[in-house]
C-alpha cells in the first residue's frame, strides 16, 4: 500500500488511529468485545479505517482477516467515510408493497445520488436496506439512528429539508 506522506495525511491518520485505540481501550474488557469496538469506531468516525484494522486485530489477538470478515459481514460497518447523515430507504417486500419505490425515487432525485453514494457536499449518504423491522408501518426509512414509518415522498423530502436547515443554522 503506497501511503500519502504529506503532513496533513500523517496527522489525519494519527487522529483516526487515536479514535480506534480509544474505542479498543473502552471496550476491550468486555466479553466478545469485537462488535462493541467496531460499533464505537463506526459511530465516532463514520467508518472503520482499513489501515487500522491491524490495531484491532492485535489488541484482541485475532488476525486481520478475521476482523475483516466481521466488518464485511455487517452492512452497518463501512470501511470508507460516509456523509454526515446516512439515509436508508427500505426496499423489502412490505415497504415495496406500500409504495416504498416512490419514496426511493423521490429521495434519489432530491439528493442527486444513487444508493451507496454520497452527495458532493458530503452531507448525505444514501443506502438501501432490506427491512428495518417496522413492517407494520411501511414504508419506512431511517435517518441516522431514527426510524420513520408511513413515509410518503413528501414527508421524506420534508425530513431531508429539515436536516439541511438544521445543519445550516
Amino acid at each position, binding site marked *: 500500500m503506497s501511503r500519502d506522506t504529506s503532513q496533513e495525511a500523517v496527522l489525519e491518520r494519527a487522529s483516526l488511529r487515536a479514535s480506534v485505540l480509544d474505542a479498543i481501550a473502552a471496550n476491550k474488557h468486555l466479553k466478545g468485545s469485537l462488535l462493541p469496538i467496531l460499533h464505537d469506531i463506526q459511530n465516532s468516525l463514520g467508518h472503520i479505517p482499513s489501515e487500522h484494522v491491524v490495531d484491532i486485530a492485535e489488541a484482541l489477538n485475532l488476525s*486481520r*482477516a478475521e476482523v475483516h470478515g466481521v466488518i464485511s459481514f455487517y452492512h452497518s460497518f463501512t470501511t470508507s467515510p460516509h456523509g454526515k447523515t446516512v439515509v436508508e430507504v427500505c426496499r423489502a417486500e412490505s415497504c415495496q408493497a406500500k409504495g416504498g419505490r416512490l419514496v426511493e425515487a423521490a429521495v434519489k432525485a432530491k439528493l442527486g445520488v444513487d444508493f451507496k453514494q454520497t452527495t458532493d457536499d458530503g452531507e448525505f449518504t444514501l443506502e438501501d436496506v432490506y427491512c428495518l423491522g417496522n413492517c407494520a408501518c411501511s414504508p419506512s426509512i431511517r435517518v441516522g439512528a431514527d426510524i420513520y414509518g408511513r413515509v410518503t415522498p413528501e414527508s421524506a423530502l420534508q425530513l431531508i429539508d429539515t436536516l439541511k436547515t438544521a445543519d445550516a443554522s
Partner: protein
Amino acid sequence: MIKVENPNKDYGTPSPLSFQDLLDGLDSNQDIETVSGTIDGQSVTVPKGTSVMRAAATLDVNIPKLCATDSIEAFGSCRICLVAIEGRRGFPASCTTPFEEGMNVTTQNSEIAELRRNVMELYISDHPLDCLTCSANGDCELQDMAGAVGLRDVRYGYEGENHLDAVKDESNPYFTFDPSKCITCSRCVRACEETQGTFALTIEGRGFDSKVSAGQSEDFIDSECVSCGACVQACPTATLTEKSIIEAGQPEHSKITTCAYCGVGCAFKAEMKGDQVVRMTPYKGGKANRGHSCVKGRFAFGYATHRNRITSPMIRDSIEDQWKEVSWEEAFSFAASQLRGIQEKYGTKSIGGISSSRCTNEEVWLVQKMVRAGFGNNNIDTCARVCHSPTGYGLKQTLGEAAGTQDFDSVEESDVIMVMGANPTDAHPVFGSRMKKRLRDGARLIVVDPRRIDLVKSPHIQAEHHLKLMPGTNVSFINAMAHVIVRDKLFDADFVAERCEGEAFDEWMAFIRDEMNSPENSEAITGIPAADLIAAARLYAQEGNSAIYYGLGVTEHSQGSTTVMGIANLAMLTGNIGRRGVGVNPLRGQNNVQGSCDMGSFPHELPGYRPVTDDEVRGTFEQAWGVEIDPEPGYRINNMLDAACAGLYKGLYVQGEDIAQSDPNTHHVEEALNNLECLIVQDLFLNETAKFATVFLPGSSFLEKNGTFTNAERRISPVRKVMPPLAGLEDWEVTMGLCNALGFEMNYSHPREIMAEIASLTPTFANVTYERLDAEDSIQWPCNDETPDGTPIMHIDDFVRGKGLFKVTEYVATDEKITKRFPLILTTGRILSQYNVGAQTRRTENNTWHDQDILEIHPSDALDRGIVDGDRVKIQSRSGETHLNAIVTERVQPSVVYTTFHHPESGANVITTDNSDWATNCPEYKVTAVQISKVIADQEQSDWQRQYETFSDKQVELASSDTEQTA
C-alpha cells in the same frame, strides 16, 4: 472393534480420538466408549463422538459431501450430506450429527436424492462448465459429487448474476486462487485456522457476495499466508491449485517418502508423472506430521532438478585450475590415490571425513565405516557437531540416552509448554502448528528467548510468560528456575527418591539452594525480572504435564551442554519425564541430525553412542568388518580445521555439508580449506566448500535414492527413490566406490543391506528392517527384543542409565564479552522460507519471501546510530566484518541484534567467533559481541564480501563447461 484408519481415505470428519488414543485403542479397546447402530441396515460400532458421516465411511458407505474433509472439524454448510434418521424430523447433515446408540440411518432414498440434486443444481448454476479443460479435472470433488447425485440439468440457466468473471490471484509462486471456481465451502479458511493456525483467510461479505479473502481482501502474497499448502490440500475444486499441476496435469502414480528439510521428518506423497515429480502432498499416515506440511516440504522441491545441479564427477589439480569432467572410476581412483599419497607423506591421521545430517542413515553409516576401516583412523565428525552435539552429551549424561524423550503426538497432552531457544513456527513449522493447536485448546506457554518469536503473540496464541534473557545466560536462567522450585518445595520428591541417584541429587540440592542461583541474583545476569521467573517456575512445576521444547538457542553456546543438563535436571526434579505430555524435546535442525549422531559419525563414538575406546565394542566392529579399528578418538570438525591450519591435516572428504558457509569464523575455515592438499566434496551443487575442492563427486537428492531418515522423535522413516539419480549413482554408491578404490571392499546392492548391518551392530536398532518400515511406515528407536514395537516415550519405568543423574550446572559467563568497542550482542536464527545454508531453498521460489538476510535492530540502538529501516549497515566483531540491510524492530530487545544465515554473500559467519561449548565444541553461534554502524553510500560490501564475490565468480566459471553449469 475399531477399524484402523486408512490414510488414503477421506472420512469426512476427524476421529473423536486423539492420534495417540487411536493407536492405543487399536491395541486394547477397553477404555474407549463406543456406540452402535445401523447405517443402511448394516451394523456399526464407533467411538462415541463420531459423526454419522464418519461412521458410514468406516463401512465404506460414502455419503456425498463438499464442505467436509477429515482434517478439519465439521461445518455443515454445503447441505449435500443430508441423511434420514429413524425417529427424527427432517434431514440432518451427517457431518455435524453425532452417531448415537441405537441410531438407524438411511443415507440414500428418493427424497434425499432429490434434495441433494437440488442443492447441487444451485452450486452448478454459478460454476464454470469447463470441466474438460479445468486444472482439477481428474481431482475435483465438485465434479465427483455432481456425478454422485446424478445432476442432469440446471433449470435456472447460467445467465443470471454469477461469479464467473472473478479474477485469478496468481501472486503466490506455487499456487493460484481462482475465485470463479469457488463454492465458498470454507474448507480453505478452516484449514488455515485449524490445521495451520495462521488465520490468514476469511469469508468476506455475506450471502451472494460471500467470497474467500486473504488478509483484508488482499493478494495471497501480501497477506499473512505462510504458503503451507493446507488450503490447497483442503480445496475440493480447482479454486486453489498448485501451479505445477496447472502446468503438467494430474499425476499418474505416487510413492510415500520422507521430507529432506527439517528434523520434523514429515511424510509426503511424491506424486509423479513418469520420473517427474509434479507435486508433493503431505501424507495423512505420516505419524510426525499427521497430514500437514510447510512451504519447504510441500513446494520447495524444484532444487532437485535445478540447472545448477552438477551431474558429472570433476577433478582438478589445484583450485586455480579449470574443473575437468571425468568418469566415476577416474574420479574415485584420482581421489583415492591423493588420499593414500597424503597418508604416506603425513601419516594415517592426516585425513578424515565429515558426514551430513542431510544424508540418510545408511549413507552416514558408510562414511564413518569408510573413515574407520578405509582411512584407518577416527577422524570422522558430522555437522551435528555444530548444532546439537550438546544435546547428545547432556542427555546421555543425565538420562542415559542421547535423544529426545517423546514423540510429537505427546504435545497433545501437555498442559504447560516451555519453549526455550527455539522458533518452531519458523524452523519446525509443522510441529509448530501442532503445538499451536494444543495451545489454542488450552495449554499454557512459557517462551524463553531474547527475541519476540511469533509464538509469543500471534492470532489466538499468547505466551503467558515471555522471558527475554540476554544471549549467553541460559544456565543462570535454568538454575534459577530449579532454585525457585526447590525453595518453594514444588518438586516431586517421590519421583526423585525413586528414580534418581540420591547422592548426586543431594549434592545438586546443596548447589542449587545456593543464593547465587536465586532468581533475584539471576536477574542481574539474565535481565529476566525475578517476579516473572518465579511465576514461570511455579507454572512449570505445578500445572500438570509440563514439556520443554528447545533448539539451537540452547545448544549453540559456550555452556550449551550445561544448559541441556540443566533442562534434564528440571524435568527430573518435577517428575516431568517418562509419560505422555511431558519430557525433554530437542527440536533438531536438519532432517537427519538424530540419525547422523546415532550412526556413530563421531570421532570418539561408534554407532549407538558407544565409546571407541571400549575394547569390547570396538571388537564387535573389528570382527564384523575384518579390520583393526584405531582405539584412539579422532579429530572433531574444529580440530580438523585447526590441524589443517597447522599443516598436520591435509585431506578431507565432505559429504553433503557446507562448512565454508555454515561453520563459524569463516576466515579460519577458509584458511584451513586452502591448506588442504586434497578436498573431496560430495554435494548436489558447487557449494561454498566445493569452491576450495579438487575432487567433486555429484550427490543425489532425497528423491533420487533409497534410505532412511531419523527425525527429532527418534522416528526412522523410509526415503524412497522416485526418480533415477541425475549423476547415475546414489550417495551411498559414491561412498562405496571411493572406499573400494581405497582398497577396502564394500559390496552392497541396496541400502536395505546396509540397514541389516546397522541393526546387527547397533543394539538400539536391532529389530529395524526395511520390511517392517514398509509395513509400519515408521519405527521409533530403541527397537529391539526388549521393545519390539519401538519406543514412542522413553524412560517410562527406568531411565536408560538406570537412575537419573542430577548434574551440577554452574553458570560461567562466556568469554565473548561486550565492551565499548563491541557493545551489542549478535544472535542468529532461521526464517520459515529458507533452510539452513539455503543451498536448496535459494534455488526455489522460496526466495520470494526472503531473498536476503536482514539485520534486526531495536529502535533505541538504531536511533543512537542514526539507522533507519532499509539502511545498509556494517557489522563488526572481533572476527570480521560484513554488511547487511537493517530493519528497525522491537522484536529484538535493546543491545541485542539478530540476523539469519541463509545467504552465503551475507557472511554471517565471518562475524561469529571460535568460541565453543566446553564439552562438545559446538560453536557459540548465538553470542557474538558486535558494533553496528551505518555504511557510506559506496560501501555496499565489506572487504570480505568483495573478495568472496570475486572468488566465487571465478570458481563458478572454472566449473562451467561448454554444455551448462553456470550459476
